[in-house]
């Protein structure tokens, strides 16, 4: 058990290092960031900028410095805004977190029950409704959903405001539409995983044997089926949450609600190397922590790993 955890953690560190290095190289392919600043037409000023940002040094030195700073927990400072990347990230986090989490709740509240019903009533009208909902959710880009909602509820019906975050992140009137637009895709996603993992379990021999034993149906479903189907569902839900919080760029653009997605997007457009590297690193760390947590969850839930 301890060996397993150590091994997983080791792999996670290697993965992180590979990713950081890849992003470090990739952002440097985008071009010279000093040209994105005002007054960059003056070659002297541009050279000064490059020197200030340390871009005049060889790549190897830049890379070494970057890794050393990372090891000390320093993610660097944005070229454009001059602030530490972590500060910028945590400034944007509340807006994104509230939106992402609302969408996450929608995806769970809709996706999981619909998936369970689809699996229980497989090949019936219920199943077809669930599958159709999932398919359409997965087939419409979320910015289109957002725009349609804006036309419908904002422009035509004029029920809800469509732009900005309103009075802070918790203003529900500004939250409903983007949260739904973001959540639909992921609800579809949840329906599929819930349905297929429930089906796998329901068709297994051990659930058949439990039914043959004449155990009440709700015990079959809650005790045996759900427990066994839970792990893939939880894993996907966690990943979805991370994506919804960090990568909601199209929704943030459509609803004029700047968050982490916009921060990252602007960073990429402005060749703001430290910002891009930092935010990507944040996301990667979250995903890796989630993967580790999932491993622990497996180990904790599944007696095959937990015991002997």
């Amino acid at each position, binding site marked *: 058990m301890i060996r397993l955890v150590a091994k997983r953690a080791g792999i996670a560190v290697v993965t992180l290092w590979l990713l950081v290095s890849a*992003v470090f190289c*990739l952002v440097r392919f*985008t071009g010279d960031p000093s040209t994105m600043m005002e007054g960059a037409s003056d070659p002297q000023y541009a050279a000064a900028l490059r020197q200030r940002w340390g871009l005049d040094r060889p790549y190897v030195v830049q890379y070494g410095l970057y890794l050393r700073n990372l090891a000390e927990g320093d993610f660097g400072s944005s070229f454009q805004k001059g602030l530490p990347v972590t500060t910028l990230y945590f400034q944007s986090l509340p807006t994104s977190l509230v939106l992402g989490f609302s969408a996450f709740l929608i995806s769970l509240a809709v996706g999981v029950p619909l998936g369970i019903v689809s699996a229980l009533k*497989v090949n019936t009208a219920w199943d077809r409704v669930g599958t159709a909902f999932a398919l359409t959710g*997965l087939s419409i*880009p979320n*910015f*289109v959903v957002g*725009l349609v909602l804006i036309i419908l509820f904002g422009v035509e019906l004029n029920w809800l405001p469509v732009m900005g975050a309103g009075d802070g992140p918790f203003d529900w009137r500004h939250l409903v539409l983007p949260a739904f637009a973001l959540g639909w895709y992921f609800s579809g996603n949840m329906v599929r995983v819930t349905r297929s993992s429930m089906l796998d379990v329901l068709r297994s021999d051990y659930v058949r044997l439990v039914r043959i034993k004449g155990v009440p149906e709700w015990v079959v479903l809650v005790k045996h089926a759900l427990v066994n189907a839970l792990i893939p569902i939880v894993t996907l839900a966690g990943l979805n949450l991370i994506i919804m919080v960090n990568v909601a760029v199209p929704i943030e653009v459509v609803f004029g609600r700047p968050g982490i997605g916009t921060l990252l997007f602007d960073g990429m457009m402005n060749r703001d190397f430290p910002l891009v590297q930092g935010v990507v690193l944040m996301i*990667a760390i979250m995903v890796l922590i989630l993967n580790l947590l999932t491993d622990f969850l497996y180990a904790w839930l599944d007696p095959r790993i937990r015991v002997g």
Partner: protein
Amino acid sequence: MADAVAVDNPPRRRLLPRLTSLPWIPLVFLSLLIVGAVFAPLIAPHRPLDPVAVTAAQCKAAYGQAFDGCYIKDDPPFFIAGSIAKTLLGTDYLGRDIFSRLLYGARISLFVSLVGTTFAGVLGTALGLIAGYMGPIWQQIIMRLTDAWLTLPPLIFAILLSTIRGPGIGNIVIILAVVFWCGYTRLVYAEVLSLRQRDFVLLAEINGVSRFRIMRRHLLPNVLNTVVVYFTLIVGVAIIIESILSFLGVGVPPPEPSWGLMIAQERDGLLEGKWWLVAWPGLAIMILVLSANMLGDWLRVRLDPHFQGP
């Protein structure tokens, strides 16, 4: 004790099922889109990059006077009152025919998604075979890289790459290949790990068949089902990613008629309630992705052994 009964013959799965069980809805939509894309120059009533030509009278009806280079901006479809140019689905902010642009846009979406995911599939399958069969060094290098790649959400990766490569249709193909290979690799790798223990591979090894030949003749054909199933899963995602990139302005560059780009260019008209500007491209994306997904679901049930019901 020997089996006292003649060998069991499972009924062979029919390759071409009866026509009634074919998924007609997605097939019809996809064929329409493909025909529209291929024959766009013949079908399209107007050119995709130029404004719809208007008569002096129409120009006068729109702007009160006739002038050279006149075009009707944001004209509604012919069935809505106030339509002047009387085009099928209306015109965009530069007076171009939306229907014609949609047809040409289908070319972009189909080309980019199919070629991009195919490239990703070829790359990912090759790497998966190598990682699974060429020994621990390759395995460690490729699989750690795969892990790292899978850590980043595809959309972030795609945007990052597109800021490097700049907008362009060819670049999107490259981006999709670079973003999506890792999923194939992980699946193929897992499959190869179990295949290499199987008797037919061991037998080939005993007989001194070269490793390359074993990969090509014995492993590749056995992972193809998985590869095709995964292809059907991500081709829809690829279309959506392309539309998002174009919508954000880092995908297909103007004036090309990409569906995502068409929506992005019409956001002002949208807030004035001109719904048709966003509805048609949105609908086009939805129909294409929905058909691809439905066809994929249908194929998956047939190809994926884990998916076969009773």
